[in-house]
């Protein structure tokens, strides 16, 4: 009797161990994903996708970590140097080169078949490619357009928004006369440089030339900087521009106190939520000699040190199918990056279409090292110009020297 009991117990123990072991092997296929916090919808969206994927692929598990944009790069840096990084991560595409240079990012071409590649709108796939290899998939994309206050601009004689910089000046003068600010000009913090690139590009200038050196110190650059400075001097912008970040200018626009500003599609959602009565329109970035706008993508990358690359890729594949894409892009107010998604009824909205129509003239941040240094040098130069501490030509010359020290290093 006693012997039998012991035998049974042993058998039971072996069976339990076996179950435990299979449990462990199934657990091993855990894919960790670091995603950026775009809005309060980001976390729930990715969790939902993870649940849906786990249901379809029993045994695999997906772990989502949501990180704020401001601290994202720092977190990734810390994780990578400690060897505890996730398997997949969202990064700003402009950081990609650094990841590739340090051999952190896995080239994805081996996993992609032509059909997969063909899902994407070509222009959005290009920024994630470095020397012929694809390292990042465009998870989020946005372009910039000019928002205008319909009431103010109608009164000023431009009911469909300004077409050129001359229109902007003419409209701003009328708006100023009625007591509001004409053109909202960003003067501090992230993308202060980009706000000036709008003027640079539309006047035919370039930020980085074909030789990989700074090219913004050009007649077009001086023209753009002089244009902005003259608007400040004539009181056509909000006063104290160097105290306004992009969010601050957006707030002015939402409060109906500034006539025009250039920013990304996400302002549409904010206006709907915070200022539903504001009547606004979206126009292309004003033309100088040519049309241009700025487009940005964020990329999903796979880390080279991942031990579950196959499963990670399966999850990526799933994320870039139609329904998950539509849910993400429409939820966050971005632009569609895949063709199927773009055809979805969710993007039949005239505001989103206005942005999509701008894409043919869009410029992306070039994938060169030193882009952040260039941004910093240009932002500093702009602040000096806006404050009247330096002449456009001098400030741009200094900034170009600064940028050249870092570009392509």
């Amino acid at each position: 009797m006693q012997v039998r009991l012991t035998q049974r117990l042993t058998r039971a123990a072996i069976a339990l161990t076996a179950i435990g072991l299979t449990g462990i092997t199934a657990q091993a296929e855990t894919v960790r994903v670091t995603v950026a916090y775009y809005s309060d919808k980001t976390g729930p969206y990715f969790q939902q996708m993870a649940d849906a994927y786990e249901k379809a692929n029993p045994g695999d598990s997906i772990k989502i970590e949501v990180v704020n944009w401001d601290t994202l790069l720092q977190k990734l840096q810390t994780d990578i140097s400690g060897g505890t990084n996730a398997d997949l991560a969202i990064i700003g595409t402009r950081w990609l080169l650094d990841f590739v240079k340090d051999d952190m990012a896995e080239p994805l071409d081996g996993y992609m078949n032509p059909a997969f590649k063909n899902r994407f709108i070509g222009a959005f796939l290009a920024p994630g490619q470095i020397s012929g290899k694809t390292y990042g998939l465009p998870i989020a994309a946005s372009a910039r357009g000019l928002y205008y206050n319909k009431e103010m601009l109608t009164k000023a004689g431009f009911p469909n928004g300004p077409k050129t910089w001359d229109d902007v000046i003419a409209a701003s003068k009328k708006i100023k006369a009625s007591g509001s600010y004409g053109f909202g000009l960003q003067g501090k913090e992230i993308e202060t440089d980009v706000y000036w690139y709008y003027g640079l590009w539309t006047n035919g200038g370039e930020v980085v030339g074909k030789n990989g050196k700074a090219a913004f110190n050009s007649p077009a650059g001086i023209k753009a900087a002089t244009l902005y400075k003259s608007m400040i001097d004539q009181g056509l912008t909000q006063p104290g521009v160097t105290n306004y970040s992009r969010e601050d200018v957006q707030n002015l626009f939402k409060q109906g106190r500034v006539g025009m500003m250039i920013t990304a599609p996400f302002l549409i959602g904010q206006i709907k939520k915070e200022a539903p009565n504001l009547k606004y329109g979206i126009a292309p970035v004003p033309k100088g000699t040519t049309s241009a706008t700025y487009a940005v993508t964020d990329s999903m990358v796979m880390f080279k040190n991942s031990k579950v690359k196959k499963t990670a890729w399966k999850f990526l594949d799933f994320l870039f199918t139609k329904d998950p894409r539509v849910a993400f892009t429409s939820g966050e107010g971005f632009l569609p990056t895949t063709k199927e998604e773009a055809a979805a009824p969710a993007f039949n909205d005239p505001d989103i279409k206005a942005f999509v129509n701008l894409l043919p003239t869009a410029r992306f941040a070039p994938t060169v090292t030193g882009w952040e240094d260039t941004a910093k040098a240009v932002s500093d130069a702009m602040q000096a110009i806006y404050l009247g501490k330096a002449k456009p030509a001098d400030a741009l010359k200094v900034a170009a020297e600064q940028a050249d020290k870092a570009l392509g290093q």
Partner: protein
Amino acid sequence: MARTASGRPLTPWLLIVPSLALALFIIGYPLYNIVFQSLHEVSRFGLIKDFCGLDNFRKVMADPVFMASLWRTLWWTLGVVGGTVLVSVPVALILHQDFYGRGVARTIVMLPWSVSLTMTAIVWRWAFNDEYGMVNVTLQRLGVISSPIHWLATSNWAFPVEILVGVLVSVPFTVTIFLGGLSSVPGDIYEAARMDGATAWQQFRKLTLPLLRPFINMAIVLNVIYVFNSFPIIWVMTQGGPSNSTHILVTYLYERGFRLGKPGEAAAISLVMLTMLFCFTLLYLRIQPKEGEGS
């Protein structure tokens, strides 16, 4: 009892060896790591690349922003610490008096201490907003100014404003030190002084100030160390801008290390800062015993 060759007992040393080793490790390892990083090329992700000698130091020193930030750090430290001590002495004297509602008054003075520096800085950033900030609105209502002042748009205003906020957040800590000091001053010497006909000012100059001196010294040293390394106020309010005109060393270090992805240069800057604080401490230790002899 075991003794060393020189005849001193060995046991006390053996007893503190574990904690000494731990302390040495905790202080020593990061220091070693920073020195190591500052002498190497380091990628954005902390990958150590080639040995580059003093290149990181050379690059940093060659940057005019670094030198400007260095001087500004001295002004910042001097302004905040000096301002704090000047404000705290009278505040502590008042709070030391026995008056109705002293408890409430003490609590109010201490309150800023309990709020995180970052939060305080964010609140002041709002308060100094051009359009709807409390400061501009109040000044306009009072008729002091006719149009809003752009506080944080130019360094002429932004830096002094940041120093003011720095003083405000350092006062509670300093007042606490002074109150502790004042409570150790015996009351009878004032009585004696009054009998001898000393005025209030004389009592302050000849009695309070000398007796408070060790506490003032302590407040100065501790505040210098905190303020010199203080990051949140400037970063939250202006991020060192506009046009690098409000950078101090620690914000400049952060920007180099984390914005521009140059940990090697950031390590070099932090060593420069460490050296500066070290020199200050040495200087302070030099001055300290002399004052002790004097009193």
